[in-house]
């Protein structure tokens, strides 16, 4: 795959205040790369440096064989599009007009759109799937819809590279998933180089081609999610009190205070849910542990129920209540 942008010994930061030192990295065409790291790690500074909003303190950023600092604003605007984290305050224009602003690097002095420009605008709107919103006022859109409109604007810019600064912040969970999947699809179908910063760790691990991990103590580490997990790097970056990386599921889990062990017998869906509930309230469970006995009964007709102390319990909730009463004795 083609390298779109390359960083050679780049130090990011502001006037004599380095934020991240000596970055050597590159982004590939056709890949969705996620930049992860805690607040204050320097994610935004790195994105701003890559977008040429601020110059690197040292080192070179190479875009299509040329040093970023030697590229004119107009050419740069045809190579890199951005979607920023701060929402535009008032946007009293239609989605179509907003997307059309993305044609600025191509239009003439007065910004008149030609047929070809209109075609690109149409295509960009279709690609993010907001055809039905095209005449809606941007002010009336939901956060997710507005984010899609801004992504369409970036697409209308027809750049190889798209940088997004926390595009999933402020969104509800289904919208986060939708935006991530959309960006992945654009990377694959259009061969774009997509680089986004995000706090949505688990989503990023599930969908990104590459992960850039960044923080103050460890610096920058790059790899595919599973390699980073295997090397224990995800744990290093994100584990802290109460949060543990589960190497078998490849996901982060909340660590609960341990209260004890119970003996859980049986199998099936109800069994799995009971096990989950027990874990949530602080009990490990196994079929051969010593202690309180819970049994999952599976009837011939497929009916499942919990048996405890010789009586059947109507729900998992009643089991939890029973255990809590036991604790207080």
């Amino acid at each position: 795959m083609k390298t779109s942008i390359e960083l050679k010994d780049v130090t990011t930061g502001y006037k004599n205040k380095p934020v991240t030192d000596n970055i050597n990295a590159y982004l590939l065409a056709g890949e969705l790369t996620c930049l992860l790291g805690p607040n204050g790690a320097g994610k935004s500074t790195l994105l701003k440096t890559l977008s040429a909003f601020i110059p690197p303190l040292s080192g070179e950023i190479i875009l299509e064989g040329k040093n970023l600092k030697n590229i004119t604003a107009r050419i740069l605007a045809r190579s890199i599009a951005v979607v920023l984290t701060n929402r535009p305050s008032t946007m009293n224009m239609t989605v179509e007009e907003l997307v059309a602003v993305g044609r600025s690097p191509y239009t003439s002095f007065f910004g008149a759109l030609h047929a070809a420009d209109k075609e690109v605008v149409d295509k960009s709107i279709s690609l993010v799937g907001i055809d039905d919103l095209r005449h809606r006022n941007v002010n009336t859109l939901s956060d997710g819809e507005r984010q899609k409109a801004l992504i369409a604007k970036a697409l209308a810019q027809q750049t190889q590279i798209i940088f997004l600064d926390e595009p999933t912040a402020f969104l509800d969970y289904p919208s986060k998933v939708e935006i991530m999947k959309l960006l992945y699809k654009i990377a694959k179908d259009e061969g774009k180089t997509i680089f986004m910063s995000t706090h949505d760790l688990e989503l990023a691990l599930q969908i990104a081609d590459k992960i850039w991990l960044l923080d103050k103590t460890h610096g920058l580490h790059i790899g595919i999610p599973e390699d980073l997990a295997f090397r224990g790097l995800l744990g290093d970056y994100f584990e802290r009190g109460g949060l543990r990386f589960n190497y078998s599921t490849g996901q982060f889990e909340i660590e609960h205070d341990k209260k004890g062990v119970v003996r859980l017998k049986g199998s099936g869906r109800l069994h799995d849910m009971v096990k989950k509930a027990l874990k949530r309230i602080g009990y490990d469970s196994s079929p051969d542990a010593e202690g309180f006995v819970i049994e999952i009964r599976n009837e011939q007709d497929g009916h499942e129920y919990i048996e405890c102390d010789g009586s059947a319990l109507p729900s998992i909730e009643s089991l939890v209540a029973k255990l809590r009463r036991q604790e207080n004795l």
Partner: protein
Amino acid sequence: MKFFWIILSVICLLIASLFIGAVHIEPGQVLDALLRKGEDDAINFIILGSRFPQAMTALLAGAALAVSGLMMQTMFRNPLAGPSILGISSGANLGVALVMLLMGSSVTIGSLAFSGYVSIIIGAFAGSILIMGLLILLSTVLRNDLMLIITGVLIGYLTSSIITLLNYSASAHGVQSYIMWGMGTFNSVSLNQLPVFAIIVVIGLVLSLILVKPLNALLLGDDYARSLGIPIKTVRNLLLLATGILTAVTTAFCGPVAFIGLAVPHIARMIWRTDNHRVLMPATMLVGSAVALLCCIISVLPSAGIAPINAVTPLIGVPVILYVVIRRR
């Protein structure tokens, strides 16, 4: 369609302002005077020497003030920005006061020699550019909308304190002509001066039309605009120049006309329901002309004679501003 109606209104108001005046003249006589067939020299003078230049001045000054208000609102990303409230007019005011009161000329602009009113225009231009530059500098520090407005109002107080000092040491006649000028009028441009006034305003308006494309990009914020290849610094300087020229020339000739610059862009937004400058810029010009002509007509309605224009503009401006403030809450 909306443009058809507003153009029609402007034409009607333009014609009406020729027929309606402080002195009652029969429509037939007005037509005769316009077609240069009139035999009554007094009526000829009123129509061609007073009403016609006044109507043209209102047409041009209205467009000029409204457009500079629009550009300031976009540039400062502040719906309450405008030449008068941000103290730009006060700056022009100060420049004019310095020229009028210190040059020892005890006459109004209407009867000044060419060198006299050129120096007044230059004074107004220097004053308005100075304040605009100051505000642009401060706007990088003052992120808050309200702070900028308060700063503008404070600058207004500061300039008026200097003007008070100037007035204190000026001749009685100088003070009177300055106060008359300060009330605002569209009746101060003579037929001979009209071409100069018109040329300067048209230059400013053309400059504004050229800025339509960058203004649209600026709606998304400075960073987005830059990523779209817009040279922010150049655009800011051009905006400074355009608003400076337009505010200065209208203030120099017509006095500090309040509210048109602030209110008209909002009226245009209410009618066209867009921030897209390709629509909003010409719309604002036309509505500005219409409102100024309307104010002009209203100002001659009182039977006692001609009311100063600043006695009329708040009647239109204040409700619009209240509406904007209440709706933003």
